[in-house]
């Protein structure tokens, strides 16, 4: 399959390539349709293993929280499996366990939903899907369980107050996104979670778990017609949205550098540097993504790792990444180093970034980055679980169905100039948000 793309790239037999690019020979023959309720479905049929993986996602992630009741989105999702239709919490768990099925919440800034892994044999599959259908469409949000989960969330938040990595992350979001919803932690804050009431969950569920916004991703040992019936079963009872989904406010870039230092007795300093980064559908996606491999995404092959770890022994982990979201998700550099080397490591990270933005990668680095990402492409889709995650992303962010086929082609096309241009326009070393959690006396 990758071979098809590569052959096409080399311009062999244009006509044959057009034929080859048809669904039958595509990397992944993804089938897409909408349910009668309007939900989007993406399906890959594969009978290699007698199992089924699926996920149903909604635009109900942490960014949908109100600032003063943040944590609602996460609690809503968590509570859905704690009571649905006539089923109680224990019954749902016991029934899932008795067929060896796994149902798990999926949650990030943009998305919330449930994933299901089950055997594809009729007894297990039907039972598992029945449970998921109830959880998605008829959650009851029991008051007592709500109170319990609220308490557990608050305890977790209190514990987090003592952890340097948690403090660093919270402050970093705050600096990057100010009052924007992307500044909110999925867990919420102690003050906001304390304010949440059960009714808030019910309301959140009604508002954001709608059929028209649902994305159903399916891969496994079933036929197209079975997948069709399953998608109907999982979405027919979802509510129909009466008003348009509210759009998120735009993300503002930082106008100045922002530095925040938090004292903590940990033996290591936690350093985060970054700014709002890229969207899923971003014209600069590929130059920024490929460039980041060279800067800090390519493990031992990356400059941050080379400069901070391999040359100087300052850190075990030193890397950078983009987290592309519906809007500009974070670009982040992260380093942990012992207190004595905090300032040195911070400076090396800043210098490495500044130099990369100013000069871009070398031709050799670009070549190595392309070879890794293109050559390693099959590793991104070598299991049903990995493919399921791509189906969800493609469906949720409305990426083209050929996204995976196009991916290596898009990478191959990126030029050195495009990387330099995109990085210099989009990434501003002189306007970074920097968080350093370190420096209090040791315990």
């Amino acid at each position: 399959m990758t071979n098809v793309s590569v052959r096409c790239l080399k311009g062999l037999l244009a006509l044959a390539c057009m034929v080859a690019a048809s669904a039958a020979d595509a990397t992944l023959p993804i089938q897409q349709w909408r349910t009668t309720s309007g939900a989007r479905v993406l399906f890959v049929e594969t009978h290699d293993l007698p199992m089924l993986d699926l996920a149903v996602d909604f635009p109900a992630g942490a960014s949908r929280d109100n600032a003063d009741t943040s944590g609602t989105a996460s609690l809503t999702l968590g509570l859905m499996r704690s009571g649905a239709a006539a089923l109680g919490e224990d019954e749902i768990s016991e029934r899932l366990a008795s067929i060896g099925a796994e149902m798990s919440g999926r949650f990030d800034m943009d998305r919330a939903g449930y994933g299901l892994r089950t055997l594809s044999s009729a007894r297990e599959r039907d039972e598992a899907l029945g449970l998921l259908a109830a959880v998605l469409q008829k959650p009851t949000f029991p008051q007592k369980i709500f109170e319990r989960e609220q308490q557990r969330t608050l305890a977790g938040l209190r514990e987090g107050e003592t952890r340097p990595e948690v403090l660093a992350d919270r402050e970093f979001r705050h600096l990057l996104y100010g009052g924007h919803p992307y500044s909110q932690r999925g867990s919420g804050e102690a003050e906001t979670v304390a304010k949440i009431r059960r009714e808030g969950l019910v309301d959140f569920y009604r508002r954001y778990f709608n059929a028209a916004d649902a994305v159903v991703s399916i891969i496994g040992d079933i036929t197209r017609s079975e997948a069709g019936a399953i998608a109907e079963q999982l979405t027919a009872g979802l509510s129909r949205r009466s008003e348009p989904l509210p759009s998120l406010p735009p993300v503002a870039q930082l106008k100045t550098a922002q530095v925040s230092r938090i004292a903590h007795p940990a033996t290591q300093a936690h350093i985060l540097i970054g700014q709002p980064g890229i969207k899923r559908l971003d014209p600069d996606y590929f130059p920024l993504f490929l460039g980041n491999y060279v800067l800090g995404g390519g493990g031992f092959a990356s400059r941050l790792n080379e400069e901070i770890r391999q040359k100087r022994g300052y850190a075990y982990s030193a890397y950078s990444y983009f987290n592309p979201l519906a809007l500009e998700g974070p670009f982040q550099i992260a380093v942990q180093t012992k207190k004595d080397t905090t300032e040195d490591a911070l400076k090396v990270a800043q210098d490495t970034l500044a130099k990369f933005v100013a000069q871009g990668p070398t031709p050799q680095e670009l070549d190595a980055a392309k070879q890794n990402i293109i050559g390693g492409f099959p590793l991104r889709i070598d299991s049903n679980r990995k493919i399921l995650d791509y189906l969800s992303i493609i469906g949720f962010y409305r990426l083209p169905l050929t996204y995976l086929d196009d991916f290596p082609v898009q990478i191959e096309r990126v030029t050195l100039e495009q990387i330099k241009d995109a990085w210099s326009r989009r990434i501003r070393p002189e306007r970074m948000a920097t968080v350093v959690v370190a420096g209090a006396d040791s315990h």
Partner: protein
Amino acid sequence: MLTTPFPIRSVFVALTLLCASAAAFAAPVAQRTLANGMTVIVKEDHRSPVAVSMVWYRVGSMDEVSGTTGVAHMLEHMMFKGTKKMPVGEFSRTIARAGGRENAFTSRDYTAFYQQLHKSKLALALELEADRMVNLSLAEEEFAKESKVVMEERRSRTDDDPHSQLHEQLMATIYISHPYRSPVIGWMNDLQNMQLADARGWYEKWYAPNNATLVVAGDVEADEVLKLAEKFFGVIPARVLPQRKIQTEPKQFGIKRIVVKAPAELPYLVMAYHAPVLRDVENDREPYALFVLNGILDGSDASRLNRELVRKSRVADSANSSYDLINRGPALFFLDGVPAEGKTVADVEAALREQIRILVDQGVSDEELQRVKAQVTASQVYARDSVYYQAMRIGMLQTIGLPFDSSDLQVKKLQEVTAEQVREVARKYLIDDNLTVAVLDPQSLPGGKRPRPNAEGVGRDQR
């Protein structure tokens, strides 16, 4: 990378590991021993055009001696620092340019190195892996830098993580003689005083083909792989391995308790019981019963600890159990929990003990037993979705000293466990004379309040 010396937290993961190669037997597995004593195992899986190559050395932190703890893991790091043929960093760069991913892990029982790549690049991985089995450079300058890196790793994994610290102290209390008492990453003192000669000695002693297993899984042909293995590894001469002494932990004569103070908000309690480990896949009974017992206590949301302690009585915010069925050394059965608001570690301990009492008095229900068995069966299928885990499982079993193809049999034996056997192992092993209890005593941060960004740092100033 480092494999946690502590039990895998989720039984589902454990089940997945347990079952990976059982499921694998749908497709052929080839095994051969080269003339130099190296074992080669190939698991074909043609679903995707990828391959994973792993070399497992039967040496881990349990083979270390006092004063040089952490050397097994240190050597793992040094394996990336160049050979006579490949300069520093070139190994990783070469694998990366081939589109590969690579890493390594060290545990108490083994050290393993792996590459995941397109199937056409397999030969490259084998060639490089064979090269560093014998030609490692081990330069002083690289060693000096890498030991700093490892100390940072220790700070991040253990020193700044209260639960890890607790577990480290707990292990050193449970075992008074067995090497499992020392952390895989090593005590900080030993890392600070480690010499290049220590790493070199380790390499020369243990990195030999007759102490290694090559596992290749993926879209490969077994014959081809065996030929490549012969070509690259077959030429490396065998070495006389050091004698391995049997180390049996002396009997415990009563309950042991420790307290660990660390910056944290919530207290935490761990109870660890000595328990038998799987040695004879065919004839052992108790380890399988303990595995099922663990599933009944903490196999899923439907299991007892979560249901009773977290959901029903609200004594705990979390409650878990775990059991490490497969080890070169001895095994433990763990129970742990974080008290809920207004509850104490004593309350959690009492509630965990009450669960043991109920188990022993009343046994387990058929439904509970069937749920655990259903999960084992399903996990066996799910594990086949990952070529990596299939290779992982084969390598682990072989290196631990169990038949690499015994997963099927293990799954069968688990299905045979009876309610009475589960009750019996609970009665026999979850007793005070086997028990060590560790408690995390949380210390508030300096100043006694939440850290906040300091005034002068928060400035939204231009840099």
